């Protein structure tokens, strides 16, 4: 509880910083004008450009953090995240197909395709999770699904009619929250909220799964339903995140890892702090992407991968060393 409160404060601070600073330097007088006159240029910069961008980053980060914590609890594996289960991969594929198919001009079409991809992956995982009780088997299936998504996305590149389309798909896959408006955020809130509710419902099942499938099966909890809720919730959250910002890796992996120690490893109590930590991470990463001076603005997905990949190696290294039967 105290941890979540501290994380909320941290999130507010980092969002405030993200709204305050940007490419255009403003004077103290302009900041005052932004608050007093909603029609002024500074107000436009703060409330229509920077604020939605920061909130979008927070929303995507929270969705990925929560999805990651849910996946890790479900699979009892600290290395699981939406990417590992192939959910991000199929969501990206959905978006790639929509863009290559010329649907990019249709408002919401690419987003819907990404969400559909995530849900297809979720449905496949749910179906398989009922058959394969071993979490390891599910991880292997996820790796296969990821590879499949990657191969089909490569096929889209391969067959795409023009270099413009290729660039567009690539830009989507790199991940970004630039130029998002309040409408985009509202649209993403619906699947994300539904996903969050499902994950919250599944929380007690995740804690029960600490002792393995057999013990959980006789715990009195409706495990089949809770497991399905966890996968569906994580898929919706991932789909919402990919629809909003493209494929952004490692936040789902890192966020639960950062907070787990503070909640004594409890997979149920990891959920809320993970969402908050994911939000902080992504707002900070987006701030870095904006502030690091390069000719071409850094893509958010590139920044998270640059920081996330070494972290992944570190987590794997620690997990392997402390692998306890």
């Amino acid at each position, binding site marked *: 509880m105290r941890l979540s409160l501290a994380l909320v404060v941290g999130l507010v601070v980092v969002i405030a910083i993200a709204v305050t600073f940007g490419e255009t330097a403003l004077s103290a007088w302009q900041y005052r004008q932004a608050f007093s006159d909603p029609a002024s240029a500074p107000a436009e910069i703060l409330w229509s450009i920077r604020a939605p961008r920061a909130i979008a980053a927070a929303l995507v980060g929270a969705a990925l953090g929560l999805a990651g914590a849910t996946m890790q609890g479900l699979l009892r594996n600290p290395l699981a995240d939406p990417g590992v289960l192939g959910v991000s991969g199929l969501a990206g594929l959905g978006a790639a197909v929509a863009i290559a198919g010329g649907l990019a001009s249709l408002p919401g079409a690419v987003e819907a395709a990404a969400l559909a991809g995530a849900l297809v992956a979720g449905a496949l995982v749910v179906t398989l999770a009922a058959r394969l009780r071993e979490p390891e088997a599910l991880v292997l299936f996820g790796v296969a699904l990821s590879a499949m998504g990657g191969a089909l996305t490569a096929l889209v590149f391969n067959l795409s009619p023009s270099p413009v389309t290729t660039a567009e798909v690539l830009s989507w896959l790199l991940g970004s929250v630039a130029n998002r408006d309040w409408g985009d955020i509202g649209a993403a809130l619906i699947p994300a909220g539904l996903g969050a509710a499902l994950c919250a419902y599944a929380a007690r099942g995740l804690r*029960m799964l600490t*002792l*393995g499938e057999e013990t959980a099966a*006789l*715990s009195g909890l409706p495990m089949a339903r809770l497991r399905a809720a966890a996968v569906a919730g994580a898929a919706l959250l991932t789909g919402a995140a990919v629809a909003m910002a493209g494929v952004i890796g490692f936040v789902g992996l890192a966020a639960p890892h950062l907070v787990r120690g503070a909640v004594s490893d409890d997979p149920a109590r990891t959920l809320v702090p993970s969402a908050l930590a994911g939000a902080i991470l992504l707002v900070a990463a987006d701030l870095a992407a904006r502030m690091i001076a390069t000719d071409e603005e850094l893509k958010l997905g590139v920044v998270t991968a640059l920081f996330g990949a070494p972290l992944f190696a570190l987590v794997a290294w620690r997990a392997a060393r402390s692998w306890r039967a």
Partner: protein
Amino acid sequence: MTPALQLLGASARRGRLPVLIDVSLCVNPGEVLGVVGANGSGKTTLLRVALGLHPLHGGEARLAGRPVRGLSEAERAGLAGYLPQERRVGWNLPAWRVAALGAVHRAPVEAREAAFLALEEVGMAGLAERGVLDMSGGERARILLARLIATGAPLLAADEPAGGLDPDAQFLAMERLRARADAGAAVIATLHDLTLAARACDRLAVIAGGRLLAVGDPASALTPEVLAAAFALEGALIDSPAGPVLAAQRRTVSDLPPSVGVRGGSAEGRGGEV
């Protein structure tokens, strides 16, 4: 009195292979029933079938007189607690939270209370806040036993509760299960150590190749003939001041009657000869 657990001509298959064949057995409140048999003889399957975790191929399994297939998850958890052989714990939860998972279907406050009582019962109340992955294997086994006790279920089913434990911990585990039986629960436990089984259980069920070979009090269940057929052992239970002790040696292949079709037993009997 309704038996807490009842198998009526129960059969089960894994794939197309029969792993449990026409087993009839009951466990009554207040008793500890031990299930013994060689590796692969069907002990775990018997427990899983009885608890509705493995599908029946024929016959029936009942908990407190009700067919296990017709029970909801919550009803089943109210009638039976299960300690599987799998002891892997996924996360480093504090001991009391693991024990509280036994009462996960109850209100959090009640679950916590049941957890601490159960930890006290297994002598682990002092380590309630310690992470289970920071414990020794023996300590963790006690925490998992406390989780079983915290279910408060009228039937406690334990798959090898003494597996991998030192002698003192083995006796402690069986003593705790006995205490639950004395308090009115029915206990069924699979065991590998026949001496421990003979001392700790009221009745023993011996299975071999998926069939029930003998049921009864330890002395009448573990006769030299049953030892030979189920375990390929030559010997007998003998009395000692501390209780019965198994004195036996392996039978060589030439001693085995050709009619003994015991999968696990005969395989182990051959092991040394090949």
